[in-house]
């Protein structure tokens, strides 16, 4: 969504995003965990009391694109819901919401994961990188540049996830062959079928052509 679109939306009064944001904050009650005894009756004094969180929001701290963030999320909030909602990082896309398409791919401690199938609470203390974190200042990363120059996108919906999978691949294997690239993006679906150009873009970035 471009800035202009956003401005237009806001002038129309209640926006969908604005409404959702407001609703999520309204629902954010005092987010502290409770110590509940186990469901069974007998419990001696030595037995572990198990921390039970929720269902209301609870405080979490994580690092997103190098920035330490303190926020709140309920136990059933996925990482994708957290980053697209309250954190307003809408680069990661929700498509299948079942971990099969890869459009929501982000890196957790450097490894690609589907943020739709990963709980925000599990991201506590982890280092998250989203597509918004790929740029250095106002410059595209070499991989992003080669995606542009190789025309490695059509509708663009798979692109943020593709970029994250390819970024992780190049980090692990700076000069992947075609088969290795195919394996690297085997969790990302492109309905437009732009795979050939994505192979070329990764190859170009790997060989220094994306700078």
């Amino acid at each position, binding site marked *: 969504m471009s800035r202009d679109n956003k401005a237009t939306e806001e002038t129309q009064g209640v926006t969908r995003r604005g409404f959702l944001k407001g609703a999520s904050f309204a629902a954010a009650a005092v987010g502290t*965990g409770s110590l509940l005894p*186990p*469901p*069974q009756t007998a*419990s001696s004094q030595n*037995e*572990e009391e*198990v*921390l*039970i*969180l*929720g*269902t209301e929001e609870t405080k979490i701290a994580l690092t997103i694109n190098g920035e330490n963030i303190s926020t709140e999320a*309920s*136990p*059933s909030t*996925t990482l994708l819901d957290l980053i697209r909602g309250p954190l307003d990082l809408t680069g990661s896309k929700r498509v299948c*919401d*079942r*971990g*099969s398409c*890869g459009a929501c*791919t982000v890196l*957790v401690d450097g*490894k*690609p*994961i*589907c943020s739709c*199938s*990963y*709980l925000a*609470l*599990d991201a506590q203390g982890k280092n998250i990188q989203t597509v918004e974190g790929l740029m250095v200042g106002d410059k595209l990363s070499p991989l992003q540049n080669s995606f542009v120059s190789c025309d490695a996108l059509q509708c663009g919906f798979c692109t943020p996830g593709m970029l994250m*999978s390819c970024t992780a691949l190049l980090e692990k294997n700076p000069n992947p062959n075609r088969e290795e690239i195919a*394996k*690297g993006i*085997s*969790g990302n679906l492109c309905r437009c079928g732009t795979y050939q150009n994505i192979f070329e873009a990764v190859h170009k970035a790997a060989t220094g052509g994306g700078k």
Partner: protein
Amino acid sequence: MKSFKMAMPKTLEGAVKVLGFDFEKRQLMAGGTDLLGCVKEHIAEPEVVVNLKGIPHLTDVVKTETGVEIGALVKLDDLANNKEIQQRWPALAQAIAQTATPQIRNVGTVGGNLCQRPRCWYYRDENYHCSKKGGSTCYALEGENEYHAIFETGLCQIVHPSNMAGPLIAYDALAEIQSPQGTRQVRLEKFFISPDMNIERENILKPNEILSKILIPNSSANKNSCYYETREKQSFDWALCGTSVSLKLNGKMIQEARVVLNAIAPRPIRRLDLEAALTGKKVSKRLFKKVADMAVQGATPLSKNSYKIELLKVVIERCLSEATEA
């Protein structure tokens, strides 16, 4: 997705206590990739999710005197890239490398893979109150059953979705189970159950039990072992048919054999009859063909999956060939 609470036990003992006696109300979570899918589809609506990630040592792979112990929360990708596993138990690494996608393998765990719920589309659809969900009908029996079972059919036609269960059974793996009374070990082969034992579950775990680790004995390490499966898609797909074999060879002579078939029945099935047919024989294409033909005797395919019979024969022959060529 229906909201849930999250329990964060610090010990396995604490986890089994908080689980209680009802599968529906309190559910275990390891990586969460399967559970979250079930919650989103409204086929699981737990009040409390018991998150195992706070329990130390469940992510450890430990070499012991007798073998290797794999914690239930070891990530699939970590195990597939473990050099020891790749060299000594190659079929296991092969099976995991073909599981799901890189993203899922970075989150999904050994315990979660073995305990994942079936992929049957009637089971996964909240609108079908099928026999696995406490209803009285298996909709696959008369319905769209092309991906369903060809063995042990009748009550519930699911195929067990784990492919790594096959090699683990071929390697004589044990499952360690934590219950309120303590821990016990069972052979992984006996961990999975048929629908006639309990149509609503795929394994022997009770609501307050946890699969905590897998133990593979040193004696089963074998380079002449292989996992072979066919799928419709190259990625993010479940097997149509799968076979795991482990052959102890003396030259061309087969001294000992393990054969496990998966994705063809509600549980992975070890085939003692095929093992006996291989043992004491010399490796040959003819023998493998004979064993493959034997394997499908007694299959009871459904209306749309008899293709799996021919497919399974090919998969078995290829798996045996690859194991002997290793």
